[in-house]
């Protein structure tokens, strides 16, 4: 198996050339799964990744070093709108999977039914096919409920709250082989037991002959007539910006773009592909989320236990889901309300604080456009009033959970609400506030829809096979082609959809 090529080991030449049957841009769940399926079918594959390898030895555990080495724009990727919404993505070999919570959900059946009915997804992407693939994914990625030994108090108290309220909750199913509960999923698993793509499908594909070029940003789509025929990219040190050689890879059969819901549409826009419907870059949808801090009499020590080891899906039908959130200590302190002595007194109780979060299946839509002069993409996203009203309801329920578990105080950090709540009644004034997205400090971690699947070239960017309507041989396999959000964490769905599309592509290549 060859090693991963990157700017420090590719040599100092001006041009590196290679060729393969299929060239994949991006090594997140979509791209890595495609590589896994295609190489198993005997297809020759090259993967190109903008980010760098992020092995366990580099994972120090503090927030900043993780942001610096593995998060898109060092975690400062922002959507502009009525409020400032950080759009969290990874940028490393493995995409976001080295820094996500490893949470695994199968696509909910009502979502698949909706895709079939409204987006014509029947032939390639359907419930039977997805369920077949999910079984394989579960097995290969060691999917299992978080074991009790890795709960820690943060997760245990969350489960206790749901139990007391009679709400449906369970240890989160995650793709981890032997979780030790280091609470560092989002900084990169220090023991590399999380089954992220960089330790699973990428090495598997490479063992079957795939080559990976990391620290290389794909810039230009090469064409043979109208057909996609390869990719040009430039090696660049993600930290220093130092520029390396040009990479030119020819694709004998197909190019797959798996750069995520922000950068896939930008790559297509830059290369004048996928524009026939006018939908490219539109329909940016996500799961906005926020969190609360609950102060318990007993120590919580949230730095022990799985980062997101317990979840509550009681209200999934009402478009909301609750889960434990394990923050790095520095971020946890920054989330505490107040400044000065008040902040130092709150920080002195950090051992006693639990962090729980909510996400909503939002109806808001945004857009992505390429940045000016090749700069960062311009992302627009505003959380609408309906979604804010959902978040208010969800927040109140999360407060209810905290007190049900025995919290002495809740620190909501919502302007217009007392900074310290000592009972559930304290959150009631939240409902008197306007449905304004600026109420909450939100992040959006699951992004979809900017190169969506559809039945016709005039209403969508790609067909059900993932092929871009107006560019033969060019495919999209990542979250950008999912036409709706799902209300659950999307890694499994991205992998599943990519798997089914790749099986179809492998048949085409073999034929």
């Amino acid at each position, binding site marked *: 198996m060859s090693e991963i090529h990157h700017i420090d080991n590719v040599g100092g030449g001006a041009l590196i050339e290679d060729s393969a049957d299929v060239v994949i841009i991006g090594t997140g769940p979509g791209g890595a799964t495609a590589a896994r399926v295609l190489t198993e079918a005997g297809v020759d594959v090259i993967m190109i990744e903008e980010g760098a390898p992020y092995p366990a030895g580099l994972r120090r555990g503090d927030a900043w070093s993780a942001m610096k080495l593995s998060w898109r724009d*060092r975690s*400062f990727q922002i959507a502009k709108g009525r409020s*400032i919404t950080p759009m969290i993505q990874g940028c490393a070999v493995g995409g976001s999977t080295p820094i996500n919570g490893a949470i695994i959900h199968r696509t909910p059946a009502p979502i698949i039914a909706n895709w079939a009915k409204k987006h014509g997804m029947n032939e390639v992407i359907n419930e039977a096919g997805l369920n077949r693939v999910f079984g394989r994914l579960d097995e290969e990625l060691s999917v299992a409920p978080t074991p009790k030994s890795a709960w820690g108090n943060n997760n*245990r108290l969350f489960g206790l709250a749901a139990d007391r309220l009679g709400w449906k909750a369970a240890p989160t199913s995650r793709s981890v082989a032997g979780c030790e509960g*280091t609470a560092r999923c989002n900084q990169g698993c220090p023991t590399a037991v999380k089954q992220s793509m960089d330790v699973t499908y990428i090495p598997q594909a490479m063992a079957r002959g795939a080559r990976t070029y990391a620290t290389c940003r794909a810039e230009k789509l090469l064409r043979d007539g109208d057909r996609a025929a390869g990719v040009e990219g430039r090696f660049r040190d993600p930290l220093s910006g130092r520029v390396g050689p040009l990479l030119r890879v020819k694709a004998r059969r197909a190019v797959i773009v798996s750069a995520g819901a922000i950068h896939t549409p930008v790559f297509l826009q830059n290369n004048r592909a996928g524009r026939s419907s006018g939908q490219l870059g539109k329909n940016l949808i996500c799961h906005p989320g926020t969190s609360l801090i609950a102060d318990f009499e007993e120590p919580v020590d949230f730095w*022990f236990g799985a980062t997101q080891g317990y979840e509550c899906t009681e209200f999934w039908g009402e478009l909301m889901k609750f889960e434990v959130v394990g923050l790095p200590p520095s971020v946890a302190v920054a989330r505490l309300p107040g*400044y*000065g002595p008040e902040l130092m*007194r709150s920080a002195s109780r950090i*051992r006693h604080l639990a962090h729980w979060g909510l996400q909503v299946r939002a109806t808001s839509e945004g857009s992505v456009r390429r940045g000016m002069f090749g700069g960062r993409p311009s992302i627009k996203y505003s959380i609408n009033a309906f979604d804010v009203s959902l978040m208010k309801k969800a927040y109140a329920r999360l407060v209810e959970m905290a007190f049900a578990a025995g919290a002495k105080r809740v620190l909501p950090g919502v302007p217009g609400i007392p900074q310290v709540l000592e009972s559930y009644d304290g959150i009631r004034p939240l409902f008197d506030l306007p449905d304004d997205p600026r109420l909450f400090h939100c992040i959006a971690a699951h992004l979809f829809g900017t190169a969506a699947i559809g039945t016709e070239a005039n209403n969508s960017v790609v067909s059900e096979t993932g092929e871009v309507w107006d560019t033969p041989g060019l495919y999209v396999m990542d979250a950008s082609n999912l036409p709706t959000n799902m209300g659950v964490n999307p890694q499994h769905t991205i992998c599943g959809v990519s798997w089914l599309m790749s099986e179809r592509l492998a048949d085409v290549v073999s034929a």
Partner: protein
Amino acid sequence: MRLFAFEKRLLAIIADAMLPSGVPGGLQRGAASVPTEAFLSDFEKYAPGESMLGVRAATWIITLLPLLWRFKLRPFGALRPTDRYALLNRLEQSRFYLIRELPNLLKIVVCMAWCSDPRVQRDLHFLSPDSAPPQWLLEASEPATSER
């Protein structure tokens, strides 16, 4: 984008007000009690330019805002500590969103710098994930709830 030395001094004053040392009933080691230069230097070097622009703007605005504050007419660094705390807390409660967010951006940077010091991590009782969990926690990890 890098801050000038005098801008770093302004930021250090704000950091000290955000996380002051010697607070009764609170943690004793504040932002001024730990070296943060190495972290800030790294942050300046690698944070996106727009973020550093935000840090610079927030530093200046918070420094100069008290000049417009009733009866104060002096920059942030010349205020008494209690007035500094009061100003920051007032900004956090502002009805104007961007004003509320100004100190927040600095708070995140300051907290990351502060927590980068191992002594602060000890103060917070933040144990290295490499260390063994305490016995009470192992016991607490046994389910309090019925299996679902």
